[in-house]
């Protein structure tokens, strides 16, 4: 075909334009195919070109290489009329063909034995290269590949001499000769050589630029406008090759401005537009490289503004749009490139915007192509586009190349050319171009956080797929976009997408998507015409009957035909069934499900209410409604139960309530059950059925759910305001046993406390396997529970009974005991577990709590008394004292003391022969105090308080069990004094009847004690005995002082007062006395009674007590 030789995308930029200009270095003399050393040298130069290496590109030049011919020099421009702006071959020639530097590699060591021969050969090579480059200012250099390492400069005389010789024979400057030792560090040498080459190249390009500039003077503005542009563009390229981007930018700007000065006529419009695109490309790219992104963008914008309206030939407007699209997409590319090199872009200014515009113009191109080219069916003969590839200039029409005069073109040729262009345009796959651009834009928008814009682009992309008849891809894109618009409730957009998507689903015969989309389509939120909905509804019904749905009549016939062919095999299967997840779509049928309670007892029916509302404008009938209930580990499905009076057919906006009733499984006690999904079955299973599954049961994401109460609702069932309750717990059934506890609270410390448990069966059925467990709610170490009033050694709860059966109304009594050794309060837990004897035995349980408090039955306190019944604060060794024990009864119960006993601990001992409890069998009520006293004595002195002994009380409450309470009783400290004194006296005396008073003074020490004894006179007595004298008491002996008293007055009278004093001299002589006066006084105070009852004189001759009977008083001296 003739058109095959024509580039289908005339607007594409030439590759040499887009390539980054780099200095070209020709390499010759390397035989990389046969010589391994040469190969490695070539590889070192040409591969692994990283950024830090010099910006040069190497080209391998063979021996027979021919360079482009040098054009004859023009001496004057006077008669020269340029035929175009930019020659097609120039760029390629200078970038890739004419090297700035040519390097001739030659294997030659300084010490080579055949030096002369080789030198001549090398020189001849240089000469032939020079001849090949005749007319070019290209720099020639020679590199000698040497095996030996070079010596430092100046030391190798031979090398220096031979180098000079070589240079002269090659007619080379000594700076143009290099040595490359082949061995280690090849890379380092290569980099250094490369830098040298690069410097040469820069000089070369600089000179070239100067050369181009020199033409400027010969040009005149009238006939050489094209040349102004051409030269400036060339300068731009040359400076770019020199890597002087500032100058380069300057010249490109000049070129662009010169271009704008050219008057645009029909004949040159394409050329100027093309060249403007090229220069603009270069300009923008350089501006990004110069880190002037704003300038780049504004340059691009002004460029577009300038050319946007220059449509050119109306018949070729697609060409203009193609050009615009290309401008945008290329700008997007260079912008993106700059971003990748670190330029920060923002949400409102990023490459995606340009790709999007590019796609936009590509769409325009397509539209204009459809308008203009649809009628063109033949390619004109002869081919007007012949030779398009070999055109001399960029942007010219092949049928009239190089015409710059404004004379009107041959109309026949012109129309043929346009027809050919239009014919070719028809062959272009526009959709691919557009989709590719959208793809680029979408990626960018995603990067710059524009999810919604991105979505819009995806939709446009999907439209394009639809246009290109790729309905499957379009459907995928549409369905993916639906979700976001749904969640943000942009219903009108959603409706539009749905409409398109459903069409795609139809055209691809994708039954599952079709029905899913149809169900959403029929909902109230989708705002499309009722007719359209009716069509979809009828199709849905047809599908359920396994009939091919009807396509939209607006679609072209051939497309519909194709769809019907696709649909036919869909229904060949016997029965179709689809499970559709409705959780993510806004369906035309809404459901709500809830439990009626948060907890269900295990023998109760669990009821789930299901509300279903249809917003479909046409009636829908379901064949089944069921609910899936999820329990830990498994799920089960239950169908609705109240179908007798409700039909499963729904009209528009109808709400119906269904009930699902089932029995909770006793395995699920204390587990959560959950409404997993509500399933509606549409269609019948024999033909085609849809299982609509509503899983997502969370609340609607409305802003203010509470406000929907104010919404006026026609329905009796206010669907919107039904609160969901998707979870419930299965709990054990509530027991109907009556449990009574009989006990006398509070319990007393230490006693076995009896509790009676009475169980009455008030269930409707008999029960079996009754088990009563008693335990403490919280473990307390000091509390024991037992079945009998004796320790049971079990810490855990005890099981009271195991009764086989207990019929309805029957009673059961059982007992248990607890004992606490701690005053506290605690709760007893009584658990009853049993099986209910109904048709289906149900395990049941009941827990009761008994609150108990423990109090002390009595408090024990003690007092210590002297023999005179005075309270004392100290014991004395050998002196007897009374221990007085008080029991204060504090409990609310009367308590019987069975017995008490006391066990003395050493060094205390009882001062009585036998212990007789004084409280035996006494009963005490609340608040009463019982006391008993016993005499004791201490044998040893002790500084701290002594433990007297253990006091044991055995007691019980009335009808209670005997409890024994043991207490340790702590007494006082004990002192030792050397003296003891006792008074022996009758219980009472009679007036004028003598009686004997004897004082027994004991010396307990091992020292002799001398005391002054005096007896004061008393009015109540006459007495006989020593009134005042000094006694000496021998160690460990007792001295008795006897007085004969004759009472004179009746009544409670004081004795004559005895006083003991330390002898006066003793105080002076024996400084450390073993007893002091203070102690003596205390001793007398506590040991001697001071008064006696004296009776009036007895009548007659009463028998006198023996102590009073006359006796002979003896004095022992």
């Amino acid at each position, binding site marked *: 075909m003739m058109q095959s030789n024509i580039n289908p995308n005339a607007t594409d930029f030439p590759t040499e334009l887009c390539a980054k200009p780099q200095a070209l270095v020709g390499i010759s003399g390397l035989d990389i195919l046969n010589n391994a050393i040469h190969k490695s040298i070539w590889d070192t130069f040409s591969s692994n070109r990283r950024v830090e290496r010099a910006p040069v590109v190497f080209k391998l030049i063979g021996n027979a290489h021919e360079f482009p011919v040098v054009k004859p020099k023009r001496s004057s421009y006077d008669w020269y009329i340029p035929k175009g702006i930019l020659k097609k071959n120039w760029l390629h020639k200078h970038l890739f063909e004419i090297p700035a530097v040519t390097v001739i590699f030659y294997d030659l060591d300084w010490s080579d034995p055949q030096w002369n021969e080789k030198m001549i050969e090398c020189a001849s090579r240089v000469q032939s290269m020079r001849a090949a480059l005749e007319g070019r200012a290209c720099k020639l250099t020679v590199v000698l590949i040497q095996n030996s390492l070079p010596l430092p400069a100046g030391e190798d005389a031979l090398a220096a001499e031979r180098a000079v010789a070589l240079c002269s024979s090659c007619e080379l400057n000594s700076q143009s000769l290099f040595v490359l030792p082949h061995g280690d560090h090849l890379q380092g040498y290569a980099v250094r050589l490369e830098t040298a080459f690069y410097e040469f190249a820069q000089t070369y390009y600089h000179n070239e630029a100067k050369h181009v500039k020199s033409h400027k003077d010969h040009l005149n503005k009238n006939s050489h406008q094209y040349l102004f542009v051409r030269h400036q563009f060339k300068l731009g390229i040359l400076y770019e090759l020199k890597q002087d981007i500032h100058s380069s930018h300057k010249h490109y700007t000049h070129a662009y401005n010169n271009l704008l000065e050219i008057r645009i006529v029909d004949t040159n419009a394409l050329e100027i537009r093309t060249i403007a695109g090229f220069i603009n490309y270069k300009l923008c790219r350089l501006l990004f490289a110069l880190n002037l992104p704003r300038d780049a963008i504004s340059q691009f914008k002004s460029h577009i503004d300038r050319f946007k309206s220059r449509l050119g030939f109306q018949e070729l407007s697609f060409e203009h749009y193609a050009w615009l699209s290309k401008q945008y997409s290329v700008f997007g590319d260079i912008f993106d490139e700059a971003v990748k090199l670190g330029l920060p872009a923002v949400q409102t200014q990023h490459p995606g915007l340009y790709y999007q515009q590019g796609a936009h113009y590509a769409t325009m191109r397509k539209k204009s192509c459809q308008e203009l080219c649809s009628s063109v069916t033949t390619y004109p003969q002869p081919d007007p586009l012949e030779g398009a590839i070999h055109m001399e200039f960029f942007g010219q029409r092949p049928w009239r190349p190089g015409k710059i005069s404004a004379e009107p073109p041959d109309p026949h040729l012109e129309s043929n050319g346009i027809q050919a262009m239009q014919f070719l345009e028809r062959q272009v796959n526009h959709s691919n171009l557009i989709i590719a651009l959208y793809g680029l834009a979408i990626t960018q928008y995603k990067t710059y956080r524009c999810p919604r*814009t991105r979505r819009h682009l995806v939709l446009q992309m999907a439209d394009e797929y639809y246009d290109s008849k790729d309905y499957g891809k379009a459907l995928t894109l549409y369905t993916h976009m639906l979700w976001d618009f749904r969640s943000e409730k*942009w219903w009108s957009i959603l409706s539009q997408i749905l409409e398109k998507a459903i069409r795609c689903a139809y055209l691809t015969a994708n039954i599952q998507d079709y029905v899913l989309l149809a169900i959403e389509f029929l909902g109230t939120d989708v705002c499309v015409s009722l007719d359209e909905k009716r069509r979809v509804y009828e199709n849905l019904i047809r599908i359920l009957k396994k009939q091919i749905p009807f396509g939209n009549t607006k679609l072209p016939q051939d497309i519909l035909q194709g769809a019907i062919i696709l649909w036919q095999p869909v229904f060949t299967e016997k029965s179709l069934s689809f499970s559709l997840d409705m959780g993510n779509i806004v369906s035309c049928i809404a459901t709500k499900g809830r439990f009626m309670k948060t907890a269900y007892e295990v023998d109760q029916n669990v009821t789930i209410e299901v509300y279903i509302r249809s917003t479909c404008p046409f009636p829908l009938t379901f064949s089944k409604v069921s609910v899936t209930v999820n329990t830990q580990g498994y799920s089960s499905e239950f169908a609705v139960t109240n179908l007798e009076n409700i039909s499963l057919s729904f009209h528009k906006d109808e709400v119906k309530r269904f009930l699902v009733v089932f029995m909770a499984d006793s395995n699920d006690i204390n587990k959560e059950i959950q409404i997993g999904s509500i399933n509606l079955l549409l269609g019948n299973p024999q033909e085609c059925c849809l299982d609509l599954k509503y899983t997502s049961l969370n609340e609607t994401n409305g802003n203010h759910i509470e406000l929907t109460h104010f919404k006026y609702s026609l329905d009796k069932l206010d669907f919107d305001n039904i609160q969901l309750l998707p979870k419930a717990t299965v709990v054990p059934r509530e027991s109907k046993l009556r449990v009574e506890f009989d006990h006398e609270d509070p319990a007393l410390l230490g006693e076995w406390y009896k509790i009676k448990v009475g169980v009455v069966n008030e269930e409707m059925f008999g029960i079996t396997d009754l088990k009563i467990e008693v335990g403490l709610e919280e473990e307390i170490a000091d509390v024991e529970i037992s079945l009998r009033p004796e320790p049971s050694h079990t810490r855990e709860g005890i099981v009271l009974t195991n009764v086989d059966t207990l019929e309805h109304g029957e009673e059961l009594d059982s007992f248990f005991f607890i004992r606490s050794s701690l005053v506290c309060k605690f709760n007893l837990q009584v658990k009853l577990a049993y099986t209910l004897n109904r048709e289906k035995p149900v395990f049941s349980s009941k827990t009761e709590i008994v609150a108990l408090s423990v109090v002390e039955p009595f408090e024990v306190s003690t007092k210590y008394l002297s023999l005179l019944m005075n309270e004392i604060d100290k014991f004395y060794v050998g002196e007897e004292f009374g221990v007085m024990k008080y029991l204060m009864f504090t409990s609310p119960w009367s308590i019987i003391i069975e017995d008490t006993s006391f066990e003395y601990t050493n060094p205390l001992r009882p001062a009585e022969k036998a212990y007789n409890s004084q409280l035996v069998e006494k009963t005490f009520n609340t608040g009463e105090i019982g006391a008993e006293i016993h005499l004791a004595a201490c044998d040893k002195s002790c500084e701290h308080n002594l433990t007297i002994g253990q006091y044991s009380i055995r007691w019980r409450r009335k009808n209670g069990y005997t409890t024994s309470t043991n207490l340790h009783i702590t007494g006082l400290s004990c002192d030792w004094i050397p003296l003891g004194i006792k008074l022996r006296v009758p219980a009472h005396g009679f007036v004028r009847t003598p009686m004997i008073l004897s004082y027994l003074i004991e010396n307990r020490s091992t020292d002799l004690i001398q005391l002054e004894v005096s007896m004061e006179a008393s009015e109540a007595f006459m007495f006989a005995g020593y009134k005042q004298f000094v006694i000496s008491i021998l160690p460990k002996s007792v001295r008795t002082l006897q007085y004969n008293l004759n009472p004179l007055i009746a009544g409670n009278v004081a004795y004559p007062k005895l006083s003991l004093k330390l002898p006066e001299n003793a105080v002076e002589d024996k400084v450390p006395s073993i007893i002091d006066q203070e102690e003596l006084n205390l001793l007398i105070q506590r040991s001697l009674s001071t008064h006696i009852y004296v009776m009036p004189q007895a009548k007659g001759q009463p028998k006198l007590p023996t102590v009073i009977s006359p006796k002979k008083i003896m004095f022992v001296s």
Partner: protein
Amino acid sequence: MAVCVGIIGKDNSPKFFTCLNPAEELNFQYKVLSALDVVEEKLNCGSKGATDLRELYLGMLYTLETHKIYGYVTNTKIKFIIVVDSTNMALRDNEIRSMFRKIHSEYADIVCNPFYIPGEPICSKSFTGSIKNIMTGTV
């Protein structure tokens, strides 16, 4: 004269939408949606920076070849969007700002209306009329 006004709720769903040419409504919806991207970005940045909390006007969000889009966000994150023809030079920043203020006060009125449920799309005729008047500049 504005060509389109949109009121977007805090959940980014449209509460009210009107444009002079009803045939183009869908296109404008896409434009307004794209503008929401910019609004969201501005709100995210605004929370960090020391922007004036009382300034509700966001300025021009972005320009298209054909239209300019302005935004305004209330403290309760209700977004007002105005689309203006890019050829329209009569509307300066200040005019746009005062349009937004008027829309805001109209919106406040409709929220106070006991028959309007906040969060629902606004379908009041008088509200639509007032907004149209603001758009055409007849108030």
